[in-house]
């Protein structure tokens, strides 16, 4: 059964002035444990799609079922809680709270979820070790490289074991080596923890790392390929 399913998902910006059709009748389903990249030229609707899936924006029409719940029907308060408990986010850059250390940043969401303190500490350390930052637990974001910061962001998104993680261009600001490194980590975590992972990119270098590649053109799905694993 699909973790996420979109049915006739459309988004039109500026409906009243100069309408921009950012998504056009998108029907997609994502299974538990998938590792998917969304690709396409600039302006093709990648960010828009991820924002819809993450409940950060409302579609103009269509629905989004997450574990059978239509999140387009949730109120903002419910959505915030939904995001907190079920979705992990990695943004393009400056993901982290500058005044918190790496381990605090990772603990943060679990704290908001009111998990027990002991479990949080243990999990935060464990996952930071998994992303290769076991020795930088108490570093502030400003003391970390861009690649390290993104790894902390990935750790934070996965720490609370959400239903799925959305990453919009997580490698866009990274050099080739760091980009590969981040993708390796994402792939490993996806495998080890069986967490569904969807990331957008127009970076040819990292596209192949995904097992499934969905190509968007002008807000519509142009191709949807499985590379297998």
């Amino acid at each position: 059964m699909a973790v996420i399913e979109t049915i006739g998902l459309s988004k039109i910006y500026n409906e009243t002035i100069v309408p921009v059709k950012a998504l056009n009748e998108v029907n997609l389903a994502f299974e538990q444990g998938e590792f998917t990249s969304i690709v396409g030229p600039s302006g093709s609707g990648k960010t828009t799609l991820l924002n819809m899936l993450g409940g950060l924006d409302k579609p103009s029409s269509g629905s989004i079922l997450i574990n059978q719940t239509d999140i387009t029907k949730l109120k903002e308060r419910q959505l915030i809680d939904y995001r907190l408990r079920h979705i992990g986010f990695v943004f393009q850059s400056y993901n982290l709270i500058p005044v918190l250390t790496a381990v605090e940043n990772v603990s943060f969401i679990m704290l908001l979820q009111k998990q027990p303190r002991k479990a949080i500490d243990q999990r935060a350390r464990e996952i930071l070790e998994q992303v290769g930052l076991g020795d930088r637990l108490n570093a502030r974001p400003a003391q970390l490289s861009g690649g390290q910061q993104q790894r902390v962001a990935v750790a934070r998104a996965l720490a609370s074991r959400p239903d799925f993680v959305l990453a919009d261009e997580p490698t866009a600001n990274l050099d080739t080596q760091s980009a590969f490194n981040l993708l390796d980590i994402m792939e490993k975590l996806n495998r080890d923890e069986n967490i569904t992972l969807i990331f957008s990119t127009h970076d040819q270098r990292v596209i192949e790392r995904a097992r499934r590649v969905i190509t968007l053109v002008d807000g519509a799905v142009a191709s949807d390929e499985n590379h297998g694993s």
Partner: protein
Amino acid sequence: MKMLFILAWRNLWRNKRRTLITASSVFFAVILALVAESMTKGSHEAMISNMVKLSTGYLQLQDSLYEDEPSVDHAFMYDDTLKQIIRQTSGIAYVVPRFESFMLAATEKSTRPVMLRGVDFEAENRLNDMGHKLLEGTSLEAGDQAVLLADGLAERLKMDVGDSIILVGQGFRGMSAAGIYPVKGIMKISLPRLNDQLIFMPLAATQQLFGAEERLTALLITPEEKEQTDLLAQQLRDQLDPKWFKVLTWKQMMPTLLQSLELDRASGMMIIYMLYLVVGFGILGTVLTMMLERQREFGILLSVGMKRSQLALITFVETVFISMIGVAAGLVGGFPVILYMHHHPIRFGEEMEAMFETYGMEAVMPFALDLQVFSSQAVVVLLITLVIGLYPVLKVFRMNILKAARN
């Protein structure tokens, strides 16, 4: 919850300089306000206590008609029943009996209206250290048939110790009051108005002169605690028949003084509030910049699942922290300053000294040491802060998550 406070606290120190500058503006405002308030309060208290001591006393018991028509006909009997009531009322330190009336004073060369005050010197001294201001001659004994003149009056009448003064006036209930008395001493009275017209005589001699034995025009009552004045007045009123007696507090007897002091205080407060307004805008500016700088961070926090109320709390607590640092430092820093000034008040120069002395006051700027001054400043600043703190809270609740995150 704890996490939110940690976040707020650390956010403050992201830009140490800005936070410190903002907090110090609060600090200086609080110190200034404390000094201004303590000074106003201190000088007002000194003025009041001076007026009270030399003229009205804290409380007065009078005949019910005396206030409207201050004539000796409205002198009341200070008899055993009344003494008993006074004795049995708790909270009274001591009483000062007076028999007071306007008379005409005559010498060989001139006549002048004067105020004759028949007093119990011992009691009077407790209230206002009268004895210290004897300039010439000797003080009076209770049984003396003699007078002391205020030095302003002595000068006007061109009289000296050893001269005799003729006093003529209206006695009790139609009797005539007239007598000739030797001047035994000249006194300095620290209220110019009184210094030009006051004559002291022992109470017994005065009552005899007016044919009003055992009667008083006023009984001044000094409470054990000044703050208890109103309460004590009420207690006395409850026990005395209003048909015969009236109990007045100094506030009722000197309404104009009270008004002018209040006006003075209000204008002082205005300046302080203006200062606070400026400081308030300073805090608002800092809070605004802190908001703008962190739009993206806020967007991310709200995206990953922080509730708006939690984020709002953080920003609110940040605002409160900034001003609390300033207020706390101001109160802690202000206390020794006020304490020192209270014990070592500023002395005025010599010219000022003369002026102060005419009013019977020490030529100093007295500072009140009153915890209420401290707490009221703290409350005012915190109230201002709460209002300012609402701004980021509103902003957070109106923020568009996506727009913020895209910044």
